Protein backbone atom coordinates (compact mmCIF):
# COMPACT_ATOMS: atom_id res chain seq x y z
CA UNK A 1 0.00 0.00 0.00
CA UNK A 2 1.38 3.44 -0.92
CA UNK A 3 0.85 6.19 1.58
CA UNK A 4 0.03 9.67 0.37
CA UNK A 5 1.96 12.05 2.62
CA UNK A 6 0.91 15.26 0.91
CA UNK A 7 -1.21 17.72 2.86
CA UNK A 8 -4.97 17.11 2.67
CA UNK A 9 -7.10 19.65 0.82
CA UNK A 10 -8.19 22.57 3.08
CA UNK A 11 -11.79 21.38 3.30
CA UNK A 12 -10.88 17.90 4.53
CA UNK A 13 -8.42 19.33 7.03
CA UNK A 14 -11.14 21.60 8.41
CA UNK A 15 -13.53 18.70 8.80
CA UNK A 16 -10.94 16.57 10.56
CA UNK A 17 -10.01 19.31 13.02
CA UNK A 18 -13.54 20.44 13.80
CA UNK A 19 -15.07 19.43 17.08
CA UNK A 20 -18.87 19.58 17.05
CA UNK A 21 -20.36 21.57 19.93
CA UNK A 22 -22.04 18.52 21.48
CA UNK A 23 -18.88 16.42 21.75
CA UNK A 24 -17.24 17.17 25.08
CA UNK A 25 -13.96 15.28 24.77
CA UNK A 26 -11.95 12.57 23.03
CA UNK A 27 -13.67 9.27 22.36
CA UNK A 28 -10.72 7.06 23.28
CA UNK A 29 -11.77 4.27 20.90
CA UNK A 30 -9.41 2.37 18.56
CA UNK A 31 -7.85 3.96 15.45
CA UNK A 32 -10.07 3.33 12.46
CA UNK A 33 -13.25 2.79 14.49
CA UNK A 34 -16.39 3.93 12.70
CA UNK A 35 -18.51 4.55 15.78
CA UNK A 36 -17.22 8.06 16.60
CA UNK A 37 -18.12 9.13 13.05
CA UNK A 38 -21.67 7.89 13.58
CA UNK A 39 -21.86 9.68 16.94
CA UNK A 40 -20.78 12.90 15.36
CA UNK A 41 -23.44 12.63 12.65
CA UNK A 42 -26.10 11.90 15.24
CA UNK A 43 -25.15 14.89 17.40
CA UNK A 44 -24.89 17.22 14.41
CA UNK A 45 -28.41 16.23 13.38
CA UNK A 46 -29.76 16.94 16.89
CA UNK A 47 -28.09 20.35 16.78
CA UNK A 48 -29.26 21.19 13.28
CA UNK A 49 -32.84 20.23 14.13
CA UNK A 50 -32.56 22.43 17.27
CA UNK A 51 -33.83 19.68 19.55
CA UNK A 52 -30.77 19.22 21.77
CA UNK A 53 -32.47 20.74 24.80
CA UNK A 54 -35.35 18.29 24.68
CA UNK A 55 -33.56 15.10 23.71
CA UNK A 56 -32.97 12.06 25.92
CA UNK A 57 -30.62 9.33 24.74
CA UNK A 58 -30.64 5.73 25.95
CA UNK A 59 -27.29 4.05 25.49
CA UNK A 60 -26.63 0.32 25.57
CA UNK A 61 -23.43 -1.61 26.20
CA UNK A 62 -20.53 -1.77 23.77
CA UNK A 63 -17.55 0.37 22.83
CA UNK A 64 -19.94 3.28 22.15
CA UNK A 65 -20.93 3.12 25.85
CA UNK A 66 -18.01 5.43 26.51
CA UNK A 67 -19.82 8.09 24.46
CA UNK A 68 -21.99 8.66 27.52
CA UNK A 69 -19.07 10.69 28.88
CA UNK A 70 -18.58 12.85 25.80
CA UNK A 71 -22.07 13.42 24.34
CA UNK A 72 -23.69 16.59 25.66
CA UNK A 73 -27.19 15.15 25.81
CA UNK A 74 -29.28 13.85 28.73
CA UNK A 75 -28.52 10.14 28.85
CA UNK A 76 -29.82 7.02 30.51
CA UNK A 77 -27.15 4.33 30.36
CA UNK A 78 -29.24 1.18 30.44
CA UNK A 79 -28.81 -2.57 30.66
CA UNK A 80 -27.52 -4.60 27.71
CA UNK A 81 -30.24 -5.00 25.10
CA UNK A 82 -32.98 -3.13 26.97
CA UNK A 83 -32.64 0.36 25.48
CA UNK A 84 -35.86 0.24 23.41
CA UNK A 85 -37.87 -0.70 26.53
CA UNK A 86 -36.33 2.12 28.57
CA UNK A 87 -36.91 4.50 25.65
CA UNK A 88 -40.56 3.41 25.63
CA UNK A 89 -40.95 4.28 29.31
CA UNK A 90 -39.31 7.66 28.78
CA UNK A 91 -41.31 8.58 25.67
CA UNK A 92 -44.64 7.53 27.20
CA UNK A 93 -44.17 9.81 30.22
CA UNK A 94 -42.47 12.62 28.26
CA UNK A 95 -44.12 12.61 24.83
CA UNK A 96 -42.65 16.01 23.92
CA UNK A 97 -39.08 14.80 24.44
CA UNK A 98 -37.08 13.46 21.51
CA UNK A 99 -35.95 9.97 22.49
CA UNK A 100 -33.32 7.85 20.79
CA UNK A 101 -31.36 4.71 21.57
CA UNK A 102 -27.74 4.03 20.67
CA UNK A 103 -27.00 0.31 20.44
CA UNK A 104 -24.53 -2.02 18.83
CA UNK A 105 -25.30 -5.25 16.99
CA UNK A 106 -24.50 -7.32 20.08
CA UNK A 107 -26.80 -5.10 22.13
CA UNK A 108 -29.73 -4.84 19.73
CA UNK A 109 -29.61 -8.04 17.69
CA UNK A 110 -28.15 -10.55 20.16
CA UNK A 111 -29.22 -9.51 23.65
CA UNK A 112 -32.13 -7.24 22.78
CA UNK A 113 -33.84 -8.53 19.62
CA UNK A 114 -37.11 -9.03 21.49
CA UNK A 115 -37.09 -5.49 22.86
CA UNK A 116 -36.48 -3.75 19.53
CA UNK A 117 -39.04 -5.83 17.61
CA UNK A 118 -41.81 -5.28 20.14
CA UNK A 119 -40.99 -1.59 20.45
CA UNK A 120 -41.20 -1.29 16.66
CA UNK A 121 -44.47 -3.22 16.48
CA UNK A 122 -45.99 -1.00 19.16
CA UNK A 123 -45.18 1.92 16.89
CA UNK A 124 -43.37 3.69 19.70
CA UNK A 125 -42.44 7.16 18.51
CA UNK A 126 -38.72 6.77 19.21
CA UNK A 127 -35.62 6.51 17.03
CA UNK A 128 -33.28 3.56 17.46
CA UNK A 129 -29.75 3.89 16.11
CA UNK A 130 -27.88 0.63 15.50
CA UNK A 131 -24.11 0.76 15.12
CA UNK A 132 -23.48 -2.50 13.29
CA UNK A 133 -19.91 -3.72 12.90
CA UNK A 134 -20.72 -7.43 12.89
CA UNK A 135 -18.60 -8.23 15.90
CA UNK A 136 -18.45 -7.86 19.68
CA UNK A 137 -15.87 -5.06 19.59
CA UNK A 138 -15.84 -4.23 23.30
CA UNK A 139 -14.83 -7.76 24.28
CA UNK A 140 -12.28 -8.11 21.49
CA UNK A 141 -13.89 -9.56 18.39
CA UNK A 142 -16.34 -12.41 18.93
CA UNK A 143 -19.19 -13.46 16.66
CA UNK A 144 -22.50 -11.58 16.92
CA UNK A 145 -25.87 -12.21 15.32
CA UNK A 146 -24.89 -9.93 12.42
CA UNK A 147 -21.44 -11.43 11.68
CA UNK A 148 -21.51 -12.13 7.94
CA UNK A 149 -20.94 -15.58 6.45
CA UNK A 150 -17.25 -16.34 6.16
CA UNK A 151 -16.18 -13.61 8.62
CA UNK A 152 -13.42 -14.65 11.01
CA UNK A 153 -13.97 -13.84 14.67
CA UNK A 154 -12.44 -15.13 17.90
CA UNK A 155 -15.41 -17.48 18.27
CA UNK A 156 -15.56 -18.47 14.59
CA UNK A 157 -11.88 -18.77 13.81
CA UNK A 158 -12.30 -20.44 10.44
CA UNK A 159 -14.98 -17.98 9.43
CA UNK A 160 -18.72 -17.98 10.15
CA UNK A 161 -20.08 -21.24 8.77
CA UNK A 162 -23.88 -21.54 8.57
CA UNK A 163 -23.66 -25.26 9.31
CA UNK A 164 -22.13 -24.50 12.69
CA UNK A 165 -23.02 -20.89 13.47
CA UNK A 166 -26.28 -20.29 11.63
CA UNK A 167 -27.10 -17.22 9.59
CA UNK A 168 -26.85 -13.50 10.34
CA UNK A 169 -30.04 -11.64 11.27
CA UNK A 170 -30.87 -8.57 9.13
CA UNK A 171 -32.69 -6.71 11.91
CA UNK A 172 -33.55 -3.68 9.79
CA UNK A 173 -35.39 -5.92 7.32
CA UNK A 174 -37.29 -7.56 10.19
CA UNK A 175 -38.29 -4.18 11.59
CA UNK A 176 -39.35 -2.90 8.16
CA UNK A 177 -41.71 -5.86 7.88
CA UNK A 178 -43.72 -4.77 10.91
CA UNK A 179 -46.73 -2.48 11.04
CA UNK A 180 -46.19 0.56 13.28
CA UNK A 181 -42.87 1.44 11.69
CA UNK A 182 -42.43 4.87 10.11
CA UNK A 183 -38.85 4.79 8.86
CA UNK A 184 -36.04 2.26 8.42
CA UNK A 185 -32.76 2.98 6.70
CA UNK A 186 -29.27 1.56 6.51
CA UNK A 187 -26.20 3.72 6.07
CA UNK A 188 -22.45 3.35 6.45
CA UNK A 189 -19.43 5.44 7.39
CA UNK A 190 -16.95 3.77 5.03
CA UNK A 191 -16.63 6.58 2.46
CA UNK A 192 -17.20 10.35 2.49
CA UNK A 193 -20.25 9.89 0.28
CA UNK A 194 -21.68 7.24 2.62
CA UNK A 195 -21.07 9.51 5.62
CA UNK A 196 -22.94 12.38 3.97
CA UNK A 197 -25.80 10.09 3.03
CA UNK A 198 -26.01 8.51 6.50
CA UNK A 199 -26.40 11.93 8.09
CA UNK A 200 -29.38 12.56 5.83
CA UNK A 201 -30.89 9.22 6.86
CA UNK A 202 -30.48 10.09 10.55
CA UNK A 203 -32.04 13.49 9.97
CA UNK A 204 -35.04 11.96 8.22
CA UNK A 205 -35.52 9.48 11.04
CA UNK A 206 -35.67 12.25 13.63
CA UNK A 207 -37.97 14.30 11.42
CA UNK A 208 -40.37 11.36 11.42
CA UNK A 209 -40.23 11.24 15.22
CA UNK A 210 -40.90 14.98 15.41
CA UNK A 211 -43.91 14.46 13.14
CA UNK A 212 -45.16 11.69 15.44
CA UNK A 213 -45.13 9.09 12.68
CA UNK A 214 -44.05 6.06 14.70
CA UNK A 215 -40.99 3.90 15.16
CA UNK A 216 -37.74 4.67 13.35
CA UNK A 217 -34.54 2.64 12.96
CA UNK A 218 -31.30 3.75 11.37
CA UNK A 219 -28.67 1.06 11.06
CA UNK A 220 -25.17 2.40 10.52
CA UNK A 221 -22.49 -0.03 9.32
CA UNK A 222 -19.29 0.93 11.14
CA UNK A 223 -15.67 -0.15 10.81
CA UNK A 224 -14.06 -2.27 13.52
CA UNK A 225 -10.55 -3.03 12.23
CA UNK A 226 -9.49 -4.24 15.68
CA UNK A 227 -12.32 -6.76 15.86
CA UNK A 228 -11.87 -7.74 12.21
CA UNK A 229 -8.10 -8.24 12.61
CA UNK A 230 -7.27 -5.94 9.69
CA UNK A 231 -5.04 -2.83 9.61
CA UNK A 232 -6.90 0.34 10.64
CA UNK A 233 -6.55 1.89 7.20
CA UNK A 234 -8.12 -1.18 5.56
CA UNK A 235 -11.33 -0.93 7.62
CA UNK A 236 -13.43 1.04 5.11
CA UNK A 237 -12.60 -1.25 2.19
CA UNK A 238 -13.22 -4.34 4.31
CA UNK A 239 -16.61 -2.92 5.33
CA UNK A 240 -17.55 -2.26 1.72
CA UNK A 241 -16.48 -5.72 0.62
CA UNK A 242 -18.06 -7.72 3.42
CA UNK A 243 -20.89 -6.09 5.36
CA UNK A 244 -22.20 -3.73 2.70
CA UNK A 245 -22.54 -6.73 0.38
CA UNK A 246 -24.65 -8.57 2.96
CA UNK A 247 -26.59 -5.51 4.17
CA UNK A 248 -27.50 -3.24 1.22
CA UNK A 249 -27.50 0.49 1.97
CA UNK A 250 -30.46 2.83 1.60
CA UNK A 251 -33.99 3.34 2.85
CA UNK A 252 -35.87 0.08 3.29
CA UNK A 253 -39.35 -0.41 1.86
CA UNK A 254 -41.89 -0.49 4.68
CA UNK A 255 -44.76 -2.88 5.13
CA UNK A 256 -47.08 0.09 5.55
CA UNK A 257 -45.92 1.61 2.23
CA UNK A 258 -46.48 -1.69 0.46
CA UNK A 259 -50.10 -1.70 1.56
CA UNK A 260 -49.48 -4.47 4.07
CA UNK A 261 -51.95 -4.77 6.88
CA UNK A 262 -51.43 -6.61 10.10
Amino acid at each position, binding site marked *: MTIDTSAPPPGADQVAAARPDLILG*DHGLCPGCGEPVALRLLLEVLQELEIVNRTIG*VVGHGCYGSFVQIMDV*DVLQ*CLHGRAPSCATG*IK*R*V*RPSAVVFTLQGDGDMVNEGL*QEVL*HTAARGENVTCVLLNNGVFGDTGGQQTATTVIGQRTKTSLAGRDPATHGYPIPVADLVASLSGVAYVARGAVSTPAAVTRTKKLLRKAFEHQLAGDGFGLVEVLTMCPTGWFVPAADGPDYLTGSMEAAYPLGELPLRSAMGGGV
Partner: protein
Amino acid sequence: MTELRLLDGCTAITEAALTAGCRFFAGYPMSPFTGLLEAMSRRMPEENGTCMNAESEIEAVNMVLGAAAAGARAATGSCGQGIALMQEAIAEMALNQTPAVVFNMARNQQDYFQCTRGGGWGDYRTLTLAPKDVPEAVEHTQLLFWLAERYRMPVILYGDPILAQTQVAVRIEPRDHGPLPPRDWVLDGSSGGTGRSRQVWTWAMGKATDPGPGPDRHWRAIAEKFSEVAAAEQRSESYRTEDADTIVVAFGTAALFVAHVVDELRARGLRVGLFRPVTLWPFPSVALAAATRRATRVLVFELNAGQMLDDVRQYVHDRDTVAFIGGVSIHESGLAFGPLLDAGPIRERILSASEGTR
Protein backbone atom coordinates in the same frame (compact mmCIF):
# COMPACT_ATOMS: atom_id res chain seq x y z
CA MET B 1 -63.11 11.27 55.36
CA THR B 2 -63.58 9.26 52.17
CA GLU B 3 -66.16 6.51 52.02
CA LEU B 4 -65.53 2.85 52.72
CA ARG B 5 -65.34 0.84 49.49
CA LEU B 6 -65.57 -2.91 49.04
CA LEU B 7 -62.54 -3.77 46.90
CA ASP B 8 -60.42 -6.80 46.20
CA GLY B 9 -56.76 -6.45 47.15
CA CYS B 10 -55.51 -5.80 43.62
CA THR B 11 -58.05 -3.06 42.99
CA ALA B 12 -57.42 -1.50 46.40
CA ILE B 13 -53.65 -1.45 45.72
CA THR B 14 -54.31 0.10 42.31
CA GLU B 15 -56.40 2.88 43.86
CA ALA B 16 -53.76 3.44 46.54
CA ALA B 17 -51.03 3.66 43.90
CA LEU B 18 -53.04 6.23 41.96
CA THR B 19 -53.56 8.24 45.15
CA ALA B 20 -49.79 8.13 45.67
CA GLY B 21 -49.26 9.65 42.22
CA CYS B 22 -48.35 6.53 40.26
CA ARG B 23 -49.04 7.18 36.58
CA PHE B 24 -46.95 4.54 34.83
CA PHE B 25 -47.37 0.81 35.13
CA ALA B 26 -46.06 -2.04 33.01
CA GLY B 27 -46.60 -5.74 33.49
CA TYR B 28 -46.90 -9.24 32.10
CA PRO B 29 -49.65 -11.56 33.34
CA MET B 30 -48.83 -14.13 36.00
CA SER B 31 -51.36 -15.14 38.59
CA PRO B 32 -52.10 -13.92 41.22
CA PHE B 33 -50.36 -10.74 40.02
CA THR B 34 -52.65 -10.74 36.97
CA GLY B 35 -55.46 -9.07 38.89
CA LEU B 36 -53.26 -6.08 39.61
CA LEU B 37 -52.25 -5.75 35.93
CA GLU B 38 -55.92 -5.86 34.89
CA ALA B 39 -56.92 -3.26 37.47
CA MET B 40 -54.06 -0.97 36.44
CA SER B 41 -54.93 -1.44 32.78
CA ARG B 42 -58.51 -0.38 33.54
CA ARG B 43 -57.73 2.57 35.79
CA MET B 44 -54.53 4.17 34.45
CA PRO B 45 -56.07 5.62 31.25
CA GLU B 46 -58.91 7.11 33.32
CA GLU B 47 -56.32 9.03 35.36
CA ASN B 48 -54.18 10.14 32.37
CA GLY B 49 -51.67 7.45 33.20
CA THR B 50 -50.12 4.70 31.11
CA CYS B 51 -50.34 0.95 31.57
CA MET B 52 -48.20 -1.10 29.20
CA ASN B 53 -48.79 -4.69 28.10
CA ALA B 54 -45.10 -5.56 28.13
CA GLU B 55 -43.98 -8.59 26.15
CA SER B 56 -41.99 -9.95 29.08
CA GLU B 57 -41.24 -9.21 32.71
CA ILE B 58 -37.81 -8.07 31.55
CA GLU B 59 -39.31 -5.49 29.25
CA ALA B 60 -41.88 -4.40 31.85
CA VAL B 61 -39.30 -3.58 34.49
CA ASN B 62 -37.04 -1.82 31.98
CA MET B 63 -39.96 0.31 30.78
CA VAL B 64 -40.47 1.26 34.42
CA LEU B 65 -36.77 2.04 34.78
CA GLY B 66 -37.05 4.42 31.81
CA ALA B 67 -40.26 6.04 33.01
CA ALA B 68 -38.81 6.49 36.51
CA ALA B 69 -35.57 7.98 35.13
CA ALA B 70 -37.77 10.44 33.24
CA GLY B 71 -39.47 11.43 36.49
CA ALA B 72 -42.68 9.40 36.61
CA ARG B 73 -43.93 7.60 39.70
CA ALA B 74 -43.75 4.16 38.17
CA ALA B 75 -44.45 0.58 39.19
CA THR B 76 -44.45 -2.96 37.92
CA GLY B 77 -45.00 -6.34 39.46
CA SER B 78 -45.14 -10.10 39.03
CA CYS B 79 -44.45 -13.09 41.27
CA GLY B 80 -42.02 -15.94 41.67
CA GLN B 81 -40.19 -16.62 38.41
CA GLY B 82 -41.40 -13.32 36.97
CA ILE B 83 -39.71 -11.42 39.79
CA ALA B 84 -36.61 -13.53 39.15
CA LEU B 85 -36.57 -12.28 35.56
CA MET B 86 -36.74 -8.70 36.83
CA GLN B 87 -33.83 -8.98 39.23
CA GLU B 88 -31.21 -7.66 36.80
CA ALA B 89 -33.14 -4.43 36.35
CA ILE B 90 -34.06 -4.15 40.04
CA ALA B 91 -30.33 -4.30 40.82
CA GLU B 92 -29.69 -1.73 38.10
CA MET B 93 -32.27 0.63 39.63
CA ALA B 94 -30.69 0.20 43.05
CA LEU B 95 -27.31 1.14 41.61
CA ASN B 96 -28.36 3.91 39.22
CA GLN B 97 -30.80 5.25 41.82
CA THR B 98 -34.13 5.20 40.02
CA PRO B 99 -37.15 4.95 42.32
CA ALA B 100 -39.85 2.39 41.54
CA VAL B 101 -42.31 0.12 43.30
CA VAL B 102 -42.43 -3.61 42.50
CA PHE B 103 -45.60 -5.44 43.51
CA ASN B 104 -44.72 -9.06 44.17
CA MET B 105 -48.19 -10.59 44.37
CA ALA B 106 -46.60 -13.91 45.22
CA ARG B 107 -48.12 -17.38 45.16
CA ASN B 108 -46.70 -18.23 48.56
CA GLN B 109 -43.92 -17.23 50.95
CA GLN B 110 -41.08 -18.80 48.96
CA ASP B 111 -40.03 -15.39 47.58
CA TYR B 112 -38.57 -14.24 50.91
CA PHE B 113 -34.93 -14.61 49.88
CA GLN B 114 -35.68 -13.19 46.44
CA CYS B 115 -37.25 -10.09 48.00
CA THR B 116 -34.81 -9.45 50.82
CA ARG B 117 -31.37 -10.48 49.60
CA GLY B 118 -31.17 -8.48 46.41
CA GLY B 119 -31.39 -11.12 43.69
CA GLY B 120 -29.21 -9.28 41.20
CA TRP B 121 -25.65 -8.05 41.04
CA GLY B 122 -24.09 -5.51 43.40
CA ASP B 123 -24.16 -4.32 47.00
CA TYR B 124 -27.79 -3.49 47.51
CA ARG B 125 -30.94 -4.79 49.15
CA THR B 126 -34.58 -4.18 48.33
CA LEU B 127 -36.71 -2.55 50.97
CA THR B 128 -39.68 -4.90 51.29
CA LEU B 129 -42.99 -4.36 53.10
CA ALA B 130 -45.20 -7.37 53.84
CA PRO B 131 -48.77 -6.30 54.66
CA LYS B 132 -50.95 -8.64 56.69
CA ASP B 133 -54.22 -7.60 55.04
CA VAL B 134 -55.75 -5.35 52.40
CA PRO B 135 -56.10 -2.15 54.50
CA GLU B 136 -52.44 -2.43 55.45
CA ALA B 137 -51.53 -3.11 51.80
CA VAL B 138 -53.19 0.20 50.94
CA GLU B 139 -51.08 2.02 53.56
CA HIS B 140 -47.94 0.21 52.47
CA THR B 141 -48.49 0.99 48.80
CA GLN B 142 -48.67 4.70 49.52
CA LEU B 143 -45.69 4.54 51.87
CA LEU B 144 -43.63 2.59 49.32
CA PHE B 145 -43.94 5.27 46.63
CA TRP B 146 -42.70 7.77 49.19
CA LEU B 147 -39.83 5.55 50.37
CA ALA B 148 -38.78 4.79 46.78
CA GLU B 149 -38.43 8.48 46.04
CA ARG B 150 -37.03 9.39 49.46
CA TYR B 151 -34.13 6.97 48.99
CA ARG B 152 -34.16 6.75 45.16
CA MET B 153 -34.34 2.97 45.08
CA PRO B 154 -36.63 0.16 43.95
CA VAL B 155 -38.85 -1.15 46.75
CA ILE B 156 -41.12 -4.18 47.00
CA LEU B 157 -44.56 -4.94 48.31
CA TYR B 158 -44.76 -8.64 49.18
CA GLY B 159 -48.34 -9.80 48.76
CA ASP B 160 -49.94 -13.21 48.24
CA PRO B 161 -53.07 -14.81 46.71
CA ILE B 162 -55.23 -14.11 49.77
CA LEU B 163 -54.22 -10.45 49.80
CA ALA B 164 -54.69 -10.15 46.02
CA GLN B 165 -58.13 -11.70 45.84
CA THR B 166 -59.92 -11.05 49.12
CA GLN B 167 -62.62 -8.36 49.02
CA VAL B 168 -62.43 -6.02 51.98
CA ALA B 169 -63.99 -2.69 52.92
CA VAL B 170 -61.22 -0.12 52.72
CA ARG B 171 -60.84 3.63 52.84
CA ILE B 172 -58.36 5.07 50.38
CA GLU B 173 -57.25 8.62 50.99
CA PRO B 174 -54.07 10.58 50.29
CA ARG B 175 -51.42 10.40 52.99
CA ASP B 176 -48.65 12.88 53.64
CA HIS B 177 -45.45 11.07 54.58
CA GLY B 178 -43.36 14.23 54.66
CA PRO B 179 -41.11 16.22 52.33
CA LEU B 180 -39.11 14.55 49.58
CA PRO B 181 -35.66 15.53 48.26
CA PRO B 182 -35.45 17.68 45.09
CA ARG B 183 -35.85 15.79 41.82
CA ASP B 184 -32.85 17.46 40.21
CA TRP B 185 -31.65 14.11 38.85
CA VAL B 186 -34.66 13.54 36.58
CA LEU B 187 -33.92 13.27 32.85
CA ASP B 188 -36.12 15.74 31.00
CA GLY B 189 -33.79 16.51 28.11
CA SER B 190 -33.46 20.15 29.08
CA SER B 191 -29.78 20.07 30.03
CA GLY B 192 -28.55 18.93 26.59
CA GLY B 193 -26.00 21.31 25.11
CA THR B 194 -25.13 22.96 28.44
CA GLY B 195 -21.91 21.01 28.97
CA ARG B 196 -23.49 19.63 32.15
CA SER B 197 -26.14 17.39 30.65
CA ARG B 198 -27.61 14.86 33.06
CA GLN B 199 -27.04 11.15 33.15
CA VAL B 200 -28.49 8.20 34.99
CA TRP B 201 -25.74 5.65 35.06
CA THR B 202 -24.81 2.77 37.34
CA TRP B 203 -21.12 3.55 36.84
CA ALA B 204 -21.63 7.29 37.57
CA MET B 205 -18.58 8.37 35.59
CA GLY B 206 -20.06 11.73 34.59
CA LYS B 207 -19.19 13.79 31.55
CA ALA B 208 -15.70 14.65 30.27
CA THR B 209 -16.41 18.26 31.31
CA ASP B 210 -18.22 17.34 34.54
CA PRO B 211 -16.77 14.12 35.95
CA GLY B 212 -18.87 11.97 38.29
CA PRO B 213 -17.67 9.96 41.29
CA GLY B 214 -17.01 6.82 39.21
CA PRO B 215 -17.88 3.26 40.19
CA ASP B 216 -15.68 2.95 43.27
CA ARG B 217 -16.96 6.04 45.10
CA HIS B 218 -20.47 5.67 43.73
CA TRP B 219 -20.92 2.05 44.80
CA ARG B 220 -19.48 2.76 48.25
CA ALA B 221 -21.96 5.61 48.62
CA ILE B 222 -24.79 3.30 47.56
CA ALA B 223 -23.70 0.70 50.13
CA GLU B 224 -23.65 3.43 52.79
CA LYS B 225 -27.17 4.48 51.81
CA PHE B 226 -28.40 0.93 52.29
CA SER B 227 -26.77 0.85 55.72
CA GLU B 228 -28.68 4.02 56.62
CA VAL B 229 -31.94 2.52 55.40
CA ALA B 230 -31.23 -0.66 57.35
CA ALA B 231 -31.06 1.36 60.54
CA ALA B 232 -33.82 3.89 59.85
CA GLU B 233 -36.64 1.93 58.24
CA GLN B 234 -37.16 -1.16 60.41
CA ARG B 235 -40.83 -1.75 61.08
CA SER B 236 -42.49 -4.49 63.09
CA GLU B 237 -45.47 -5.32 65.25
CA SER B 238 -45.34 -7.10 68.61
CA TYR B 239 -48.61 -8.69 69.69
CA ARG B 240 -49.03 -9.95 73.27
CA THR B 241 -45.29 -10.47 73.61
CA GLU B 242 -44.67 -8.59 76.91
CA ASP B 243 -45.02 -11.60 79.23
CA ALA B 244 -44.76 -14.33 76.59
CA ASP B 245 -42.66 -17.47 77.11
CA THR B 246 -43.28 -18.51 73.53
CA ILE B 247 -43.01 -16.00 70.70
CA VAL B 248 -44.03 -16.94 67.18
CA VAL B 249 -42.41 -15.00 64.35
CA ALA B 250 -44.49 -14.78 61.17
CA PHE B 251 -45.05 -12.29 58.33
CA GLY B 252 -47.80 -11.28 55.92
CA THR B 253 -51.06 -13.21 55.81
CA ALA B 254 -49.49 -16.03 57.83
CA ALA B 255 -49.12 -13.61 60.76
CA LEU B 256 -52.89 -12.97 60.70
CA PHE B 257 -53.52 -16.68 61.21
CA VAL B 258 -50.90 -16.85 63.96
CA ALA B 259 -52.46 -13.85 65.76
CA HIS B 260 -55.77 -15.72 65.80
CA VAL B 261 -54.10 -18.81 67.29
CA VAL B 262 -52.26 -16.64 69.84
CA ASP B 263 -55.65 -15.34 71.07
CA GLU B 264 -56.99 -18.91 71.29
CA LEU B 265 -54.00 -20.14 73.28
CA ARG B 266 -54.03 -17.06 75.55
CA ALA B 267 -57.66 -17.90 76.36
CA ARG B 268 -56.38 -21.30 77.52
CA GLY B 269 -53.82 -19.58 79.75
CA LEU B 270 -50.72 -20.09 77.61
CA ARG B 271 -48.30 -17.17 77.51
CA VAL B 272 -47.85 -16.96 73.71
CA GLY B 273 -47.15 -13.88 71.60
CA LEU B 274 -46.55 -12.90 67.98
CA PHE B 275 -43.69 -10.90 66.53
CA ARG B 276 -44.44 -9.73 62.99
CA PRO B 277 -41.72 -8.21 60.77
CA VAL B 278 -43.49 -5.55 58.70
CA THR B 279 -40.35 -4.71 56.78
CA LEU B 280 -38.73 -7.96 55.65
CA TRP B 281 -35.72 -5.90 54.61
CA PRO B 282 -34.57 -4.12 56.63
CA PHE B 283 -35.35 -6.96 59.01
CA PRO B 284 -36.51 -5.50 62.36
CA SER B 285 -33.41 -6.74 64.17
CA VAL B 286 -33.53 -4.32 67.11
CA ALA B 287 -37.19 -4.98 67.90
CA LEU B 288 -36.80 -8.75 67.57
CA ALA B 289 -33.84 -8.82 69.95
CA ALA B 290 -35.82 -6.78 72.49
CA ALA B 291 -39.06 -8.74 72.10
CA THR B 292 -37.33 -12.12 72.54
CA ARG B 293 -35.22 -11.16 75.55
CA ARG B 294 -37.35 -13.08 78.06
CA ALA B 295 -38.75 -15.77 75.74
CA THR B 296 -37.79 -19.37 76.27
CA ARG B 297 -39.05 -20.44 72.83
CA VAL B 298 -38.97 -18.49 69.56
CA LEU B 299 -40.93 -20.32 66.86
CA VAL B 300 -40.63 -19.33 63.23
CA PHE B 301 -43.73 -19.94 61.14
CA GLU B 302 -43.47 -19.29 57.40
CA LEU B 303 -44.80 -21.08 54.34
CA ASN B 304 -41.43 -22.15 52.93
CA ALA B 305 -38.56 -24.41 53.95
CA GLY B 306 -37.08 -21.79 56.29
CA GLN B 307 -36.00 -18.52 54.69
CA MET B 308 -36.87 -15.81 57.25
CA LEU B 309 -35.53 -18.35 59.73
CA ASP B 310 -32.01 -17.21 58.76
CA ASP B 311 -32.81 -13.63 59.80
CA VAL B 312 -34.49 -14.68 63.04
CA ARG B 313 -31.46 -16.79 63.97
CA GLN B 314 -29.21 -13.85 63.20
CA TYR B 315 -31.05 -11.28 65.34
CA VAL B 316 -32.89 -13.18 68.08
CA HIS B 317 -31.76 -12.60 71.69
CA ASP B 318 -30.74 -16.25 72.17
CA ARG B 319 -30.25 -18.50 69.14
CA ASP B 320 -30.80 -21.64 71.20
CA THR B 321 -34.47 -20.68 71.71
CA VAL B 322 -35.24 -20.77 67.95
CA ALA B 323 -37.23 -23.61 66.38
CA PHE B 324 -38.84 -23.83 62.95
CA ILE B 325 -42.53 -24.74 62.78
CA GLY B 326 -43.26 -23.68 59.19
CA GLY B 327 -42.75 -25.60 55.97
CA VAL B 328 -43.44 -25.79 52.28
CA SER B 329 -47.19 -26.05 51.77
CA ILE B 330 -48.59 -25.37 48.33
CA HIS B 331 -52.08 -25.87 46.94
CA GLU B 332 -52.30 -28.65 44.33
CA SER B 333 -52.66 -26.03 41.60
CA GLY B 334 -49.26 -24.64 42.53
CA LEU B 335 -50.84 -21.19 42.63
CA ALA B 336 -51.79 -20.71 46.28
CA PHE B 337 -51.10 -21.71 49.87
CA GLY B 338 -51.51 -25.31 50.99
CA PRO B 339 -53.24 -26.74 54.10
CA LEU B 340 -50.53 -25.65 56.56
CA LEU B 341 -51.93 -22.12 56.47
CA ASP B 342 -54.80 -22.76 58.87
CA ALA B 343 -55.44 -22.28 62.58
CA GLY B 344 -55.50 -26.04 63.34
CA PRO B 345 -52.05 -26.98 62.05
CA ILE B 346 -50.51 -23.77 63.41
CA ARG B 347 -52.00 -24.44 66.86
CA GLU B 348 -50.73 -28.02 66.88
CA ARG B 349 -47.23 -27.02 65.87
CA ILE B 350 -47.02 -24.26 68.47
CA LEU B 351 -48.30 -26.63 71.19
CA SER B 352 -45.95 -29.48 70.33
CA ALA B 353 -42.96 -27.13 70.04
CA SER B 354 -43.66 -25.42 73.37
CA GLU B 355 -44.28 -28.57 75.39
CA GLY B 356 -42.26 -28.57 78.56
CA THR B 357 -41.67 -24.84 78.48
CA ARG B 358 -44.96 -23.74 80.05
